[in-house]
Every structure is written in C-alpha cells, then in structure tokens.
C-alpha cells in the first residue's frame, strides 16, 4: 500500500516537475521515500511467508541503494568523482546477496526470553516463528526447538495451573484447549468448533497453542497500545481456536483506538466477515429463537458444558481409583455416588435444554460425544450424533 502510494506520487512528480530546478527536491523525495519503504519492509517485516518477505526486502534494499548512489553521484559528480554508476553496478550484486543469504530475522526474536520482551513487535515475531515451527512438516530441528521451547517454558512459567508443569496423562490435547477455553466464558463454545476438537491435534500442539495464548495475553498487558499485537491475537483466536466471538471482541477493542488506514481496513473487514458468520451460525442454532431466548439458551448451554466437564472429571477420578493396586473402597464409593449425581444433573439439564431447542446441532453433538467418550455408550451417542 505504502509502496503503491510512493509509486503514484513519483509518477506525478516525474511527469510534471520536469524543470532542472526541481532536481534537488526530487532527489530528496526519492531518498526519503526509499528510506521509509526500506524501514517498513526491513523492520516491520509484514510478510508471513519468508520467500515473499525476502523478495520485498531485497527490492526495498536495492531501491535504497540505487537512490543513495544517485544522491552520491549528484553530490560528488559535479566535482571529481564521476564513477558512481560503477559503484552502483558493483554494489548491486552484494546488496542482493546480503538480503537473500541473511538468516530469518524472526529466529533472533524466537530466542528472546518471553519475560524480557521490550516491544510488541518482538512478541509478534516470537509468536510468528513459533507458529512457523508448528505448521511446518516435523523435522529434527523443528521438533528439537519445540521440545526445548516447552522445557524452557517450564522454568519460566509462574502459573501453578500451567499445563507444562502437569505431567498427568489426563492433560490430553482437548483438555488443555478446554482449560484454555474455560478462561473466558465466550471461549467455551470454541471447544465445540471442529478445528479445536480435531482429534489430529496433538498434545504438544495444544500445549503450544496454550503457550501462544499466554504470550498474547501477557503481551497485551505489557504493550496495550501496540495495535498490531491486538490484531494478531484476534487472528490467532480465529485461526487456531476458532473463537469468533472473542476475536470480534478484540477487534472491537482495537477499533476504539487510533488506527492506521490499513489496520482500520483490516479490522473493519474482519469484523464484518465474523459478524456475518456468527449471524449464519445463529440462524443454524435455532430459527425459532428470538434474541432473549437465545441469550438465555446460550447461558444454559454454558452451564450444561460445565456440568459435563465436572462429570467427566469425576469419571476420570473414579477410573483412576479403580485402576490402583490397592483401591480405597470408601473413596470409590464416595466418588461413585458423586458420579451418579453428576450424571443425573447432566440429564436434568439436558431435558430442560432440549425442550427449549430440540434441533440444536451443538447441543446434540455435545451430548452425543458425552455418551461416547465419557459414558462409553456408543449406540446412544451415535443416535444423538446422527440427529
């Protein structure tokens, strides 16, 4: 955008300011423009794909190199040194080579201790590199780096509930994401989204998503005025946690602050897309529900989720006790009665909810999964899922 604007202004200047007396002004504009474009590409690093980033960075450097040499030729050309053009030709391959062979700039940010970030830009670059490692095909380097990152995080993590510190087998992928989702009532629904509930999501990936979430929240506390971080967090919530509502909330917060034109456009566009999609989903949830009913339904639905979570935990505790070498019968009996009570509570809540909205896909899906994964009643669970 800024580059196109620069080209647009240049086209005008070079077409209309044809007089020799404007030469100094043109050179000054060329130099300032080239410097701004170079700084933008070099330090803000706006491209996610490394090849594209390198290409643009090379072009911006080449542009600045050419303009610098042109200024050099203007200053010294009128005196003794007239070979600036050779200097330009000689230096060009070096500028290209330096840019193409330089290492990924984000690597540097990746090795910064998360407790010692000095700017929002560092947080974004750190997270982007982490996401790049997660997304790329596993190789020895990426696996080692990610394992090392998790190990390192254990030493920095001050939260007692941090899943990195918990070695229990019960912390599977969905459990971690569920814990993450439970941090916000809005995020709870994200558990049901197909992407987060994807069984292909490994425990390590879920753990890394958790760490990224923590990095963003910590980053936002440290650098509340750095808007690209807020926007980037909204995209993370949208892409990885499929939490449209929280992404929308973050984007709305960002919109209240002074934004640059491109950021404003981005926020406006994604807010519109998310709102449209939420609208479509709400249409699917229940065509017959009015707004008041829907709000009350959502609140009841969240309670239902909490009951299912409680019931699942009690089940896990019950089976853990039974599988011990010397089970404590009194404790088993105590947990067993709690399990029965929780199952009854879930059933009661289910009856209430299904009466309000009999064809709700989210509800049926959750209850079906509860039957299959917690109660191990596959037949009944599949009946609900098939509905």
């Amino acid at each position, binding site marked *: 955008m800024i580059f*196109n604007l620069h080209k647009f202004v240049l*086209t005008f200047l070079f*077409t209309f300011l044809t007089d020799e007396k404007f030469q100094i002004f043109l050179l000054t504009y060329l130099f300032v423009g080239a410097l701004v474009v170079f700084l933008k590409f070099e330090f803000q690093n706006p491209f996610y794909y490394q090849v594209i980033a390198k290409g643009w960075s090379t072009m911006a450097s080449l542009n600045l190199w050419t303009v610098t040499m042109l200024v050099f030729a203007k200053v010294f050309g009128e005196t003794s040194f007239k070979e600036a053009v050779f200097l330009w030709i000689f230096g060009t391959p070096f500028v290209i080579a330096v840019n193409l062979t330089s290492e990924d700039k984000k690597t540097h940010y990746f090795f910064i201790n998360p407790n010692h970030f000095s700017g929002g830009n560092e947080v974004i670059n750190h997270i982007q590199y982490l996401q790049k490692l997660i997304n790329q095909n596993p190789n020895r380097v990426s696996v080692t780096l990610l394992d090392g990152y998790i190990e390192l995080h254990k030493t920095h993590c001050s939260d007692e509930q941090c899943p990195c510190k918990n070695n229990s087998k019960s912390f599977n992928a969905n459990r971690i994401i569920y814990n993450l989702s439970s941090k916000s009532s809005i995020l709870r629904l994200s558990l049901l989204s197909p992407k987060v509930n994807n069984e292909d999501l490994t425990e390590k990936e879920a753990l890394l998503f958790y760490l990224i979430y923590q990095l963003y929240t910590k980053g936002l506390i440290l650098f509340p005025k750095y808007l690209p971080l807020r926007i980037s967090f909204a995209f993370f919530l949208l892409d990885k946690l499929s939490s449209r509502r929280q992404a929308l909330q973050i984007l709305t917060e960002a919109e209240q602050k002074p934004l640059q034109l491109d950021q404003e456009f981005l926020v406006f566009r994604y807010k519109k897309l998310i709102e449209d999609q939420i609208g479509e989903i709400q249409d699917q949830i229940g065509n017959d529900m009015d707004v008041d009913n829907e709000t009350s339904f959502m609140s009841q639905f969240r309670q239902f989720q909490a009951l299912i979570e409680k019931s699942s935990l009690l089940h896990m505790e019950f089976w853990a006790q039974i599988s011990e070498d010397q089970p404590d019968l009194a404790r088993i009996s105590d947990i067993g009665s709690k399990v029965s009570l929780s199952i009854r509570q879930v059933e009661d809540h289910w009856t209430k909810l299904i009466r309000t909205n009999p064809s709700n896909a989210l509800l049926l899906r959750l209850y079906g999964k509860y039957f299959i994964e917690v109660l191990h009643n596959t037949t009944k669970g599949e009946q609900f899922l098939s509905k």
Partner: protein
Amino acid sequence: MFQSSKELNTLHKTYQIWSYPKVHKGLHTFFEHLRLVQYFKETNMASYVAIFYLLLVFIAIIIFGLAYTYYTASKRRLVPAWPVVMVKFMLTISSNIFFYQFMDYFVSILACRTNKSGQSVHSYFSDQVCWEGIHLASGILSISTFIIFFGISSIATLILFEARPLKITLMPSKMQEH
C-alpha cells in the same frame, strides 16, 4: 526494479546525474523498455490514445466485475466462479505488476510542455495542442481513471496483501459453494 527505472528515465533526464554517458545511456535504454508508454510515444496521437482507451476498457471490466460480484453476493445468489477469478486475476496484475505502467500511461496523457511559440502542447506529440479536441476528452477521462484506479488498487492491495493468508472459512457460505 520499476522503481529503479523511474530513477533512470524521466522527461527531464534525471538519469544524467550519473554523469557517465557511456553507461547511463545503456541503463536508461534498458529501463525505458519497462514503460508501456515507451512503445507508443513514437507512433501518433491516434494510436497513443487508442491504447489509452484499451486500458480504460480493462479498468472498466474490473469495475463491472466487482459491481457484479457485489450485487450477486448482496442478493445472496450463487456467484459463478469465473467472474470472481477473472476479476481477482486482473486486479492482482494491474495493482502489482502493471501498476506503474498503467499509472504512467494515464498520467503521461496529461504531460504537456510549452513550445517555442508559447503554446501548450503534448510532451510526446508536438502537433497536439493540450486541452483541446481529443486531448480534452482523454485528459478528463485520464484524471478520473487514475483516481478510480488508485482507489481500486489500494483496496486490492489491502485485501490481497494483508500479511496473512485469506481463510476461506470466513468467506460468506454462498460464495464458498463455488
């Protein structure tokens, strides 16, 4: 490299700053070939303007395609895939690869100079008086077109290069069907 070409070829020969004619003239000739206007400024005003109108048609197709896509999407009808793909392709090439060439051509229509008799004539065609006859119509069209073209290119740049890949799941579901 279009940027570099701009530095090397201008109407008032900024490239001469290099002060080494044997080399800078060669570079100048090479970079001049990246300009679309270069191939038509040696012909005649009619051919030059004809190409300008062809570019206008190109921009008009993009505008029409955008309007059509917007209309069908707002009516929540199914949008056939090919106009969307075609408009996206045309937008991508015009706002990136040919942005400078298009803009240079549009602005070059307005480039006038004063001849020996004090009359304002076109920079490339000295027999064409500025702001008269065909130049008046072309000039007005040129001003409106480069304003619209810059607006469209900016929006296309913001949409296509927003530092993250577009998630198809965020497209309205009616559009996803195709």
